[in-house]
């Protein structure tokens, strides 16, 4: 199985690990990530005004390229996923935005939300299957107690993202089970880490990250995993260092026995 893949700017720079482990794991699991050519930054946040078009076009370009190849579009960074999925929803369901975006794009065939956008985790759950992953695990992370940190971007707004139950998600917990470890459910796993606010308001982010870490720590987690480079940064930088934080792809690569490969 071949997917179009949109890595995004952070995965090229500060979050190279997130990307590299995902690619190696994909190979081990038997699917291929084909990077979109000349992708442009998604903008990091979904354009706020309902009247904005220009800032949505980079997403539309990526979506259309996947459509032309007849592939689903896979994302990994939470922010990219959030933006691209929502823009796709606009293209599918909001007449005005679709018309205006297509006027800008001047495509041979107008784009109308045909591409399916999948987060890497959704590929693992819905296409590969966690049972299948379990079979392929060579180094099960037995005994490790892991807290999943979802953050906000993957879950909300639930009606559009349709990723998981936004108030009681289970996908990363199921993932943790698949790699042989033990998930620790804690209530703040879907509360915000502060996001971009940490640039100028470190204290705010600090109180939020501390609350998340305390909650996970209190419930017995030994580490946190996340899919978002910004969450990882905030939790590490502004948390209280109670728990280590890593990308979920790193543990996946480890369990599949391809982590060393990547390190080389």
């Amino acid at each position, binding site marked *: 199985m071949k997917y179009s893949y949109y890595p*995004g700017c952070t995965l090229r720079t500060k979050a190279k690990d997130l990307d590299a482990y995902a690619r190696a794991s994909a190979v081990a699991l038997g699917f291929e990530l084909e990077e979109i050519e000349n992708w442009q930054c998604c903008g990091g946040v979904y354009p*706020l005004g309902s009247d904005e078009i220009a800032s949505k076009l980079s997403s539309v370009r990526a979506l259309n390229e996947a459509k032309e190849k007849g592939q689903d579009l896979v994302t990994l960074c939470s*922010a990219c996923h959030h933006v691209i999925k929502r823009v796709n929803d606009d293209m599918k369901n909001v007449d005005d935005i679709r018309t205006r975006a297509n006027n800008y794009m001047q495509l041979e065939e107008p784009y109308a939300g045909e591409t399916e956008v999948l987060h890497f985790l959704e590929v693992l759950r819905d296409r590969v299957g966690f049972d299948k992953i379990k079979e392929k695990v060579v180094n099960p992370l037995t005994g490790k107690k892991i807290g999943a940190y979802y953050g*906000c971007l993957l879950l*909300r707004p639930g009606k559009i993202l349709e990723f998981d139950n936004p108030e009681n998600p289970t996908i990363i917990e199921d993932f943790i089970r698949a790699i042989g470890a033990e998930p620790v459910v804690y209530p703040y796993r879907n*509360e915000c880490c502060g996001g971009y606010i940490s*640039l100028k308001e470190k204290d705010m982010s600090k109180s939020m990250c501390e609350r998340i870490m305390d909650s996970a720590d209190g419930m017995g987690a030994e580490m946190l995993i996340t899919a978002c480079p910004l969450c990882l940064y905030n939790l590490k930088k502004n948390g209280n260092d109670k728990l280590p934080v890593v990308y979920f792809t790193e543990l996946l690569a480890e369990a599949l026995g391809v982590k060393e490969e990547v390190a080389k």
Partner: protein
Amino acid sequence: MNTAKKQAEQIKEISGVNPLKCMKCGKCSASCPSYNEMDIKPHQFVSYVVNEDIESLVNSKSLWKCLSCFACVERCPRDVKPGKLIDAARQVVVRQKGQDYLSPNEIPELLDPDLPQQLLVSAFRRYRR
């Protein structure tokens, strides 16, 4: 139409929100992780727009404290989505020249070596035109 009314209409249009649907339950304010940092609370945003007091809104500290985490959007039982109103008010401000909350000169001292691009990109989008 007077200026306040015009601004209120603009906010409603940008956000796509009908603030009259609000039943004043306060679930937004109950959900907001930035509540304590805000001078105008999320549920008040709705009534400020209804009462067309946009002047207070655009000068509010809250504009720059909202995380856009969508907790209020997700949980609002009336589909009012206060977060979208805050976003819209912020747009009104940053679309005016010289009203940016973040200037390029500030950035070097805010940077650190681990800071992901995503953070800068989204902060720019939030704070600037």
